């Protein structure tokens, strides 16, 4: 019943952690019991995005090395009762956890939660191999940018080699105006190369930055386009059939307002 999903990308900075945080909050908003596992040991960020840094007592390494039970390391979200974070260590490095340990941990977490989301580190080295080991399926995050798409392609190949054939795509930070002008890869270009099922198209939105700094994921904001797009992804993960958003063209007045900085 419960699902273990790894969120990965290959390239850094495309929004893996942001996506993990938003999907976690989104699933929790629907009443699902969710745990987010940060496997980016040494470069942990997920706790910041959720505003939970000051509540961390134990971390992933303490759990995998058997010092504490995982329940002691879980941090409950202050607003969403059914959302938990399993943070990782900021002082150790990726070699501190191995794939077998994470598989065992995820099997324990499965008993308690509806969704286990694993935030994967960038790269294709050991940290990546560890993060994907336990996953039922993978969510690849990319950006409409040639290097991000190239790395996503590589990651899909690596996932295939590890027998993870169920892979879905989220394209982050789309700028509709640039796509329209032909200055940015559009969805057809991306699908042409990656040819995997796309379940999310997230527009670039300033609110993502401001909400990240506040530690409150953008998905909880009603007036944000990115938030709406993330809510749609959550719906699709839950099996709903939701059409993709269309981005309205900017009217003359909106353009004028933008130009005047209003």
């Amino acid at each position, binding site marked *: 019943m419960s699902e273990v999903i790894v969120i990965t990308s290959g390239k850094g900075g495309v929004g893996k952690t942001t996506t993990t945080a938003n999907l976690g909050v989104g699933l929790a908003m629907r009443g699902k019991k969710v745990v987010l596992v940060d496997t980016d040991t040494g470069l942990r960020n997920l706790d910041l995005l959720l505003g939970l840094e000051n509540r961390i007592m134990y971390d992933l390494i303490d759990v995998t090395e058997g010092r504490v039970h995982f329940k002691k390391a879980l941090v409950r979200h202050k607003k969403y009762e059914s959302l938990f974070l399993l943070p990782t260590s900021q002082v150790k490095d990726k070699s501190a956890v191995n794939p077998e340990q994470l598989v065992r941990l995820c099997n324990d977490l499965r008993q308690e939660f509806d969704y286990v989301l694993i935030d994967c580190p960038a790269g294709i080295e050991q940290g990546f191999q560890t993060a994907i080991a336990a996953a039922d399926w993978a969510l690849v995050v990319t950006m409409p940018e040639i290097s991000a798409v190239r*790395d996503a*392609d*590589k990651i899909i*190949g690596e996932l*295939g*080699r590890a*027998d993870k054939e169920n892979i879905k795509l989220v394209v982050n930070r789309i700028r509709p105006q640039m796509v329209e002008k032909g200055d940015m890869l559009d969805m057809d270009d991306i699908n042409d*190369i990656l040819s995997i099922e796309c379940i999310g198209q997230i527009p670039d939105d300033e609110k993502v930055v401001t909400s990240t700094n506040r530690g409150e994921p953008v998905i909880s904001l009603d007036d944000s386009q990115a938030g709406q797009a993330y809510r749609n992804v959550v719906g699709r993960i839950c099996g709903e059939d939701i059409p993709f958003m269309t981005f309205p063209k900017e009217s003359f007045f909106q353009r004028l307002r933008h130009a005047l900085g209003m």
Partner: protein
Amino acid sequence: MMSEDIVKLKGTKTGLQISFAPGVTFQAIEKNIKRKLESGSGFFMRGTVVEIAPNLLRHADWERLRVLFRRHGIVFRMSKPSVDKPADSLLEEAAKKKKKAREREVEQMVVVDRTLRGGQEIRTESSVLVCGNVNPGAQIIAGGSIDIRGTCRGLVHAGAFGNSKAFIIADRLMPMQIRIANFIARSPDQPETSDKAERASIKDGQIVIEPIER
């Protein structure tokens, strides 16, 4: 018992032949192999073929080892059982078989029924048929010709061992580079598109690309 003795590896023409000390449990074997693989000593290179004599393991155990090796990018398979033959004809036989196998491989075609993604490589002496795309960053190096039923954006090298009659066909031929035998052509800096399948071959000492019907 020394741990080195549990698993024995012997080099063969195709890769490595694995065998086990008599009377060792499968758990010990698996643990030993796992340690070797994870030691990262580079002893097992990705793409290495490890062979095992048939009937040495139970099927379930065999499958476990296969998955373990595969995770490290190593091919694990059963070796062909050798038939007892008089010694003098054995050598001759082997030479003949080797020649035949080589000929067969050259004639044969390697069929890849998936998309080749960035970083993946096909290297063979025979021809290659890809039912899927060849993405940027992927490579095909073939002794014979290459036929791609899809879009080719990667690097393709046909006739890599000197066959200048080899050719490359793709539904959409837009690779980074085309190499045939010892000729190289790179893609134009301004990409041009064609709706037709195209064929690249060597004519008058250079690589030419022409549309074809199929």
